[in-house]
């Protein structure tokens, strides 16, 4: 997928576990894993807002756009 979520990097930088983030945001750990692995099809503004609030970052830091190599 061209849009990638940098959850691992941000969690590592803040020394925070996925379970702790799940606890703070109210988003289940299973759903955060779906986000992390790039399986998610869409993200709600409320989820994005909670993640940005708890990770102390902007949406631009959380989401990156990567160009896919042409076949």
């Amino acid at each position, binding site marked *: 997928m061209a849009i990638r979520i940098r959850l691992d990097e941000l969690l590592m930088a803040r020394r925070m576990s996925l379970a702790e983030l799940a606890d703070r945001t109210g988003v289940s750990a299973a759903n955060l894993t779906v986000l992390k692995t790039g*399986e*998610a*099809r869409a993200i*709600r503004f409320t989820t994005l807002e909670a993640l940005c609030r708890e990770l102390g970052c902007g949406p631009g830091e959380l989401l990156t756009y990567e160009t896919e190599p042409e076949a």
Partner: protein
Amino acid sequence: MRALGPGSVSSFLKMVLDIVHFALIAGVIGVALLAFADLLFTVNPALLDSVEIADRGQLIERGPVMLMGLLAAGFYMAGVLAIIGALRRIFATLIVGDPFRPDNVGRLRMIALMLGILELGRYALWSISVWLPDVHHVRPTFGLTAWFSVLVVLVLAEVFREGARLRREAELTI
């Protein structure tokens, strides 16, 4: 009154469909047994000698026509049974409150297909019966209702396909 879930209208309709389903199974078995007996008597009329029947001559003479009628009735009932079976499975998903399952799309398409086949079968039966002697019971009725029903069910199948797609999307929306 609720439309979906346990104790709802769907639940009541599922119960009715269950009763019709088992009645149809009994009907198909009954017709198959009658057809088998008729086939035996047609192939070997001597078997009728051991049976007390009032109009034996006519029974032997009309045996093949009766067999065809019984087979047609059997196939028609089996077709309706397939439709009822698919409807039962669809209604089971309505009772658990989850109608937009991908399986239901296939079930609805199968119902549309069976409705079309049954209608074509009715035309075929009428065409054949025209050539048979002493058969005046089958009357041709070319109505648009059956074909309209086929189209409606096909459209409903597409609606369910879209519903299943939206459900998948919603499941992956975090």
